[in-house]
């Protein structure tokens, strides 16, 4: 059970971050609702952020990823409009 519940602190902050910038559903940020999500969604969201930020797409909340999430940045979502279908040439 404890494994299932999101570990508070780092993981929770990362979840809020990924939801704020368009990598996870905004409902994740709703403090009044518990949010269970399957592993693949969580992993994919981390990989997408890592790919966008130029990190190795490990899908793991590793130290480099956590560090980048703490950098000052713009409040606009990363994934919006055509950004979602960003196709590499």
């Amino acid at each position, binding site marked *: 059970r404890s494994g299932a519940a999101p570990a508070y602190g780092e993981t929770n902050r990362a979840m809020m971050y990924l939801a704020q910038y368009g990598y996870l559903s905004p409902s994740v940020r709703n403090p009044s609702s518990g949010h269970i999500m399957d592993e693949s969604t969580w992993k994919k969201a981390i990989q997408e952020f890592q790919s966008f*930020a130029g990190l190795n797409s490990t899908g793991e909340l590793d130290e480099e990823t956590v560090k980048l999430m703490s950098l000052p*940045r*713009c*409040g*606009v979502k990363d994934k919006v409009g055509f950004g979602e279908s960003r196709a590499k040439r």
Partner: protein
Amino acid sequence: YALQGSRWRVKNLTYKISKYPSRLNHAEVDAELAKAFAVWSDFTDLTFTQKRSGQVHIEIRFEKGEHGDGDPFDGPGGTLAHAYFPVYGGDAHFDDAEMWSINSRRGTNLFQVAAHEFGHSLGLSHSDVRSALMAPFYRGYDPAFQLDQDDIMGIQALYGHKTQVDIGGGLPNPTVPRVTTPQPSAEDQELCSDSKFDTIFNSADGSTFVFKGDNYWKLTENGVAAGYPRPISRSWPGLPGNIDAAFTYKNGKTYFFKGSKYWRYNGQKMDGDYPKEISEGFTGIPDNIDSALVWSGNGKIYFYKGSKFWRFDPAQRPPVKSTYPKPLSNWAGIPDNIDAALQYTNGYTYFFKGGSYWRFNDRTFSVDTDNPAFPRSTGYWWLGCSSAPRGTVGGNARLSAPSDEHH
């Protein structure tokens, strides 16, 4: 770059600063925000006018915490600012809890963050190019700030190139067509009798030069400038003749290649101890290349030799991936063994071979279709040779003003 999907239908936009930051002088903020808008008007025909009151396109506010749009700020660090895309109104909000600074390494640079947010107000989403202004992360104070090629392509995809004469201090940029006073043109017998040349490139100030043997010509809107050819060595001291390839990179430096060597010039001044070995400065690129260009599609450097091409990305390690070389036939419709190539100041990419040339369509990734079709006669369209055929090389010529390819 990524486009959000909306843009302004008008190019003359107005803005007002409804709420100033609590710790900065209002006049200084006015100046910094005007500079931030100028970042975008330097490369487009957009204009920005500050108003003190009334209806405007873009409203700017410095706020703390919850400020009425359901997207509260979070105090120092974290989120610095956010802005709304044109379809949502275009307004820009800045977190007044930040230590906003001007021309200082301390605090958060107001100009850079504002220029980024105004990119959103104009319709740009975040870019995944780390060096781009529209990347989401604040990179710290950059006294030598310049827009990345990626940002320029994004804003010009929305609002086109800059066409008006730039009265202000706009940055020189080889991809921006410059309205220059027309120079007298002259037909050059040598080039008109044999329009094959060694290389063609733009200099950092947007001039276009053709190299052939020991001589060079400067091109005008309608052909070659009067008073040419001139010896290459007179204008580029230390540079030999019979150059293989040349291009100007976004750092404003021009690179020349011959055999196994290359030279770097800043304008027409050698930029250090050259020549150097290509294998040293452009690891992964072979000697004796046919041509090179900075491709308008992604701002990367491409080298062509025989039936192959290589992509060189200075920001990557290694700069040439192991998947290269690739067959030149990937550039659909471009023949092997080309003589020269360039990204012209109109933003298009051109390839030259013998007396013919092809215009490349970056979106279809193939030779452009037009009437007359490509290949066309280089002499007629680029060198002002009225006697050369206008139409498709070997095809019939349709009478019209020569060399409107330049437009």
